[in-house]
């Protein structure tokens, strides 16, 4: 029997999962779309992971991260439920122990993590605005009629990127339409967008942070070679993109689950159970907290969202 650990990262756009063993080797991995239904996404994910594992492997601990970490963690009875910043830092250092800067752009958030000697010493995350994140790029790709996976290679064709005002997603879109209407070429616009994403990131999230090498770029947007190139041009240093860059979060949380030393045999059949969530406004005081209740096979297993005891069940 081989001991293994499951890490799941449920983000706004995609759901990622890995199974690792005691020496951090990836035994199974999967990346799929969340499509607004984290529970179904995780069930599909478990199904896929299970087929990749042989019967000899026993999952001993589970960790969850990403924006749906609490919901999914509750359902899977996870040993570790952690935020994505910590998970990414741990995951990345397991592959790049000397990393100093982690640039991460995901579906709806972007962050910068500054590391020193394998620990996080500073970080920042976008707060008020999501301009320049993955969902922005994918909606612009749609508008231009390009598949999001081809976006990067398209950008590389350009020799003179168009300047796009990307401070705000909505205005960026009007600027982009405007530039297209006055005759800028599509590849120039695409390259301009990649540049704009990078400038926006460095001016907001990266503001005041010392970016030192080695630099690792990850998150869904790191698959876009146009953005990676734009980063290298802007920073003037080499930017490493790992082929597993999209899995760093779940890798990190799998490691944290293993290090938690709380072990419990994990049963993949959980994917066949019925999970339901019910959301409602409490209405017991004027806070009107939005309370979420989670049911497993019609039995209430947890609830959250209440600010005061009035909303306690």
């Amino acid at each position, binding site marked *: 029997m081989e001991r293994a650990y499951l890490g799941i990262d449920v983000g706004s756009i995609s759901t990622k999962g890995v199974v690792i063993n005691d020496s951090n080797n990836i035994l199974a991995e999967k990346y799929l779309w969340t499509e607004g239904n984290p529970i179904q996404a995780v069930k599909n994910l478990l199904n896929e992971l299970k087929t990749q594992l042989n019967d000899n492997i026993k999952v001993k601990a589970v960790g969850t991260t990403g*924006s749906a970490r609490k919901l999914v963690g509750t359902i899977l009875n996870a040993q570790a439920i952690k*935020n994505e*910043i*910590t998970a990414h830092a741990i995951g990345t250092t397991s592959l790049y122990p000397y990393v100093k800067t982690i640039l991460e752009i995901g579906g709806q958030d972007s962050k910068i993590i500054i590391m020193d000697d394998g*620990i996080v*010493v500073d*970080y920042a995350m976008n707060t*008020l605005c999501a301009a320049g994140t993955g969902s922005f790029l994918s909606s612009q790709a749609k508008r231009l009629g390009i598949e999001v996976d081809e976006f990067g290679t398209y950008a590389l064709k350009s020799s003179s990127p168009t300047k796009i005002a990307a401070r705000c997603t909505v205005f960026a879109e009007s600027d982009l339409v405007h530039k297209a209407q006055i005759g800028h070429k599509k590849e120039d616009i695409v390259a301009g967008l990649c540049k704009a994403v990078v400038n926006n990131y460095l001016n907001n999230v990266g503001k005041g942070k010392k970016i030192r090498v080695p630099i690792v770029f990850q998150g869904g947007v790191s698959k876009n070679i146009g953005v990676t190139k734009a980063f290298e041009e802007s920073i003037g240093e080499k930017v490493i993109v790992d082929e597993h860059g999209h899995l760093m979060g779940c890798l990190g949380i799998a490691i944290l689950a293993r290090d938690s030393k709380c072990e419990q045999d994990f049963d993949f059949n959980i994917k066949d159970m019925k999970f339901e969530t019910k959301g409602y406004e409490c209405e017991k005081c*004027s806070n009107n907290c939005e309370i979420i209740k989670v049911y497993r096979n019609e039995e209430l297993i947890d609830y959250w969202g209440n600010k005061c005891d009035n909303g306690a069940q």
Partner: protein
Amino acid sequence: MSVEYKISFPHMGNYYIPIATFVKNTLNAKICLPPKITKKTLELGTKHSPDFVCVPFKYNLGNYIEALENGANVLIQAGGGCRFGYYSEVQEEILRNLGYNFKFFNITSRTFKPLLYYKMFKEINPMLTIKNFLYSFYLIYKQIAVLDKFEDYIRENIGFQINDGDFKRLEKKFHDELITIEKIKDLKSISIKYTKLLKEVPINKPNDCLRVGIVGEIYVLMEPFSSCFLEEELAKKGIEVKRYINISYLLFSKEHKKTNTLKLAKPYLQYNIGADGVDSVAHSKVLAKKGFDGIIHIKPFGCTPEINCMPILEKISEDYKIPILYFSFDSQTSETGVKTRLEAFHDMLLMRKEKNKKWKELT
């Protein structure tokens, strides 16, 4: 025929207690406290405020509307050295346009002149004597000091209480008694009683616990609802919280004088940067020097004085190797986002501490 006055004022933390006591002891009028701040307050305030105004304006306006709906007819507002200075005129105008009928008093904290207030208060209560006014003034000053001292102790220890809810229950009792006082004598006995009770609450506080200082704009610092209960969240993680800004500090302390804070903020600042920006810089430096594990800087979205001080805080963070986390609060702030960032901040502080410990053992 005279109208019966029902006086109201905006909420900020627990300061409704001294203000209510003061009004009761001087004005011989009824107090109409606005309901506690809830999401509804903020929604009401946001609906009738300019969208880009700083968030305390929206909370205040929401408080006024809820109070007026409950029958208040006299409203009090203060003012300060930033956009806060325009609050009262604009809010009065908005409320009048909404069709409410009320008297509006503006007490500006930058020109702190008790005698001027005496004239104002006399307008409402002609029977008010100068002696009574000054006595009440002294009483509120002492009362605020007692309240702030109580809260400081809680902030430092609530994260370590052994029985959940002990401090909260005691605080509630304390507030209920504090609001009833009329004489200095009453205040003294309450102060002694509750200082003792506070010390009796069982806590389990390690010597090397994580310590975090909070600096920033005064309203979001003092009204917990507006910062998504940041201090409570930190306490839940077992962190000692230090905050210099409170009303005692702002109105009565000598340290708050600009010359003093500027001296503390050296060499980072030579000039005033507006409102309480200098305090944020000075306190961050003090916290860094005292070896705190981290600093959290909070402000309403668009708060210019606090934006001014942020690049300087980054310098302090670099010089003293102390991490600083920044938050901007608005009517649109997502609580989940705040929690995620706090969680990551906590993890980071723990990892740093662990590493420093190992380093010390090695050397």
